[in-house]
């Protein structure tokens, strides 16, 4: 089979919809996309004069072979999981909460305020739960504003939740540059450290703030039960799957929109408490408090196909990816741009793999069809025949 003079390959690609997806296929495609991403990234690293094998080897062995690496990965996974599980609730209702980032920041603000100013001397067993509660309420409250706007006035929540992120970020900046600026910070724009009784305990030898980890895992399970076993979850799914039918069946849209946003924002708020009281121990620049978890969590939720339990895996996966970036930069001196390309390639390949799950590509050598098939049929002309 030779390539024709017209440089037309005698290969035909056809895309057809898959009607059934086996789990073997799903795993196979996921691994293949990952492999492809690694192969493509190798080129980038090689162009930068690095040995791809060395980069992968070092990164992989550090993340999964050292306790520091594993702990780092889990620490990154905690806020991702909390935010993603919350997003699952909203996304199932087709309520597009893009504001987890801001809701997370509000959780951090509320718990910082509580620990620094309201009850700094309360004992930890009282203070820490109250910080989580206040964080949940603050995140939920922040989400309530766009929720009400959507439920009552049908304002697009994508825009409002996105914009609320910037307001939240500026609010944090206002606080740390203004009224909350610490007395012991040499004028730097952050608050004082929260009192030790407000600091979350960690797993010894690591920085894993386990109370938040437990909350995150519990939230995944609770949300799973909520969605699959309760009438509220049922209403959310009906509304998300067919809002017109839900309305016709007597499900109130405003109830669903507000409730899902409250849960979504509240869980993001919990993530904020964890970051504040488990990692930073003070309110500081919003870019440090959140590193974009609220946005990355959108990817986590979708990779898990909006299944809260699967979010545990996808949060760890994204966590590993984030850590891999740090490792490459710090110990392999890979440039930041290359790391970004690496992350981008991995996500792009996985998303492309999703398409392959839904469609199959048929490749066939179809020399015969090219020659004898279409093209020589009559009726090419646009003009109708004369009458």
């Amino acid at each position, binding site marked *: 089979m030779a390539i024709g003079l017209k440089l037309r390959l005698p290969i035909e690609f056809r895309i057809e919809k898959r009607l059934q997806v086996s789990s073997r296929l799903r795993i196979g495609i996921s691994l293949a996309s990952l492999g492809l991403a690694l192969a493509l990234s190798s080129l980038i690293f090689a162009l930068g004069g690095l040995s791809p094998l060395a980069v992968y080897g070092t990164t992989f062995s550090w993340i999964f072979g050292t306790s520091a690496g594993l702990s780092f990965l889990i620490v990154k996974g905690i806020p991702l999981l909390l935010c993603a599980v919350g997003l699952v609730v909203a996304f199932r209702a087709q309520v597009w909460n893009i504001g987890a980032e801001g809701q997370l920041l509000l959780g951090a603000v509320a718990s910082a305020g509580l620990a620094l100013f309201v009850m700094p001397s309360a004992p930890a067993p009282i203070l820490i739960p109250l910080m989580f509660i206040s964080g949940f309420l603050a995140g939920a409250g922040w989400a309530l504003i766009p929720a009400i706007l959507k439920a009552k006035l049908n304002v697009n929540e994508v825009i409002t939740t996105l914009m609320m992120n910037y307001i939240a970020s500026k609010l944090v900046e206002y606080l740390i540059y203004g009224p909350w600026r610490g007395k012991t910070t040499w004028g730097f724009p952050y608050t004082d450290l929260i009192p030790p009784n407000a600091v979350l305990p960690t797993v010894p030898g690591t920085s894993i703030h386990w109370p938040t980890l437990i909350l995150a895992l519990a939230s995944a399970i609770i949300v799973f039960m909520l969605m699959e076993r309760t009438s509220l979850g049922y209403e959310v799914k009906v509304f998300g799957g067919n809002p017109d039918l839900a309305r016709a069946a007597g499900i109130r849209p405003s109830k669903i929109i507000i409730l899902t946003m409250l849960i979504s924002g509240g869980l993001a708020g919990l993530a904020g408490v964890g970051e504040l009281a488990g990692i930073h121990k003070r309110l500081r620049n919003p870019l440090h408090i959140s590193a974009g978890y609220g946005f990355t969590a959108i990817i986590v939720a979708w990779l898990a196909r909006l299944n809260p339990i699967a979010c545990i895996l996808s949060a760890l996966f994204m966590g590993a990816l984030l850590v891999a970036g740090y490792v490459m930069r710090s110990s392999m001196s890979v440039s930041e741009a290359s790391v970004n390309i690496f992350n981008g390639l991995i996500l792009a390949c996985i998303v492309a793999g999703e398409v392959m799950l839904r469609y199959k590509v048929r490749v066939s050598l179809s020399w015969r069809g090219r020659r004898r098939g279409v093209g020589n049929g009559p*009726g090419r002309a646009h003009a109708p025949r004369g009458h």
Partner: protein
Amino acid sequence: MGARGEAPRSREPLVRMIGITKRFPGVIANDKVDFELMPGEVHALLGENGAGKTTLMNILYGLYRPDEGQIFIDGREVEIRSPRDAMRLGIGMVHQHFKLVSTLTVAENIALSLEGTGLILPARRVRARILEVAQHYGLEVDPDARIWQLSVGERQRVEILKLLIRNAKVLILDEPTTVLAPGEREELFKVLRKLAYEGRGIVFITHKLEEVFRVADRVTVLRKGRVVASGLPVRSTTPSELAKLMIGRELKPRLVKKPARLGEPVLEVEDLSVLDDKGLLAVRGVSFNVRRGEILGIAGVAGNGQRELVEAIIGLRKPRSGRIRIDGHDVTGKAPADVLKLGVAYIPEDRARYGIVPDLSVAENLILKLYKVPPFKRGFFLDEEYILSWSRKVVSDFGIVTPNVRAPAGSLSGGNIQRLILARELSTRPKLIVASHPTFGLDVAATEQIRSLLIEQRERGAGVLLVSEDLSEIMELSDRIAVMHEGQIVGLLSPSEADVEKIGLMMSGKLKEVDG
């Protein structure tokens, strides 16, 4: 218009499909199907829903590739990889769901469909051709009108014009009459006869027997993916023979209805006016009532206010003026939740939109009206085991064909989706059933079942408001018939005094007769 059979015929078939097999997971949609289309004929492709008619034609039109089999066009073997290939071979198809851009004009839509038009649409150049071709075939349509402004019948004309301007020799029409009023249907048949007379070949996909006899020269019958009769001359067959071929058994006799045992009025509509989506008055001062134990049929060409009327009753649309009472309660302007609570079942016109949640399972779809009450819900949680076992029972009671109750509802066929909707809506033993086009697009078996279910409900003592364009359905089921035209009830008849012609005249607004 030439009489049938007079068309000039050459011996070479336009289309010959041999041994076409197409498998989808779990089903063989076409099993070694042979099909032949001669120039100058209207060839009916008859079969129930799911018999494989559309699949076969989608293969000819290049939307699917066959797993096996050969296609010959004008005697030459071809491979059709895409609709573009099909069009180059002179094959065109009008789908059940039109492929038009609703915000563009007729001329723009037609220009879009032409090949190699480049960046600037030659809508102007095409305009003249449209007028010429439209006039020649009697397919009058304003080339400058935007698609959304057109009636369904006019949109269909645009689709046909698209093919004619490309000079298609083979025209495939997929169930073209489902969207048409009786008058429009006759117009379409005339056009088809004329096209055949010119030597084109027409494939007419249908599941309606009478249409085969109205328009076709030959008929090929498919059942469960196989050809059971190939190229039968219509003159040498009978409706009952075709029915038997199509469904594999004799047609059931007409439904027997006991005389109505009328009870209290369950729905009272008083001087009701409702606006449509564009803000125009769609229902103008309509009054009627439905009593328990009766079926009130509303006949009319789609778009004469029936949809707005039903939506106002259900609470999906706020009336502008007038009163609606259900079981004595004033529900004017109330939310659907409040209306449905009173014991109202709603069989929607738009099954995709209001009928099911396609991504949720059959069981989850079935419990939509019951999930809040025990034994479906116990305390905080849904009782999954009870729901599954109850759903299995309902699925078998209503004959819903599904692999299992956890399969997504969207994977069911149209007839089974409608069975699911009925099962769900009737699960609460409603007092009033509002059914919009309940058998639209369904095959014979599903249609029979759904009609007898409605009669069962009437005999149980429910009131039924039946909106349908299908006159035979209206006449077969209704105890009283109201005819709607331009938002008004122009006639209220009993089935005994009603005949198709009289109702047809009323539907077209040529006859009014309101006595109550």
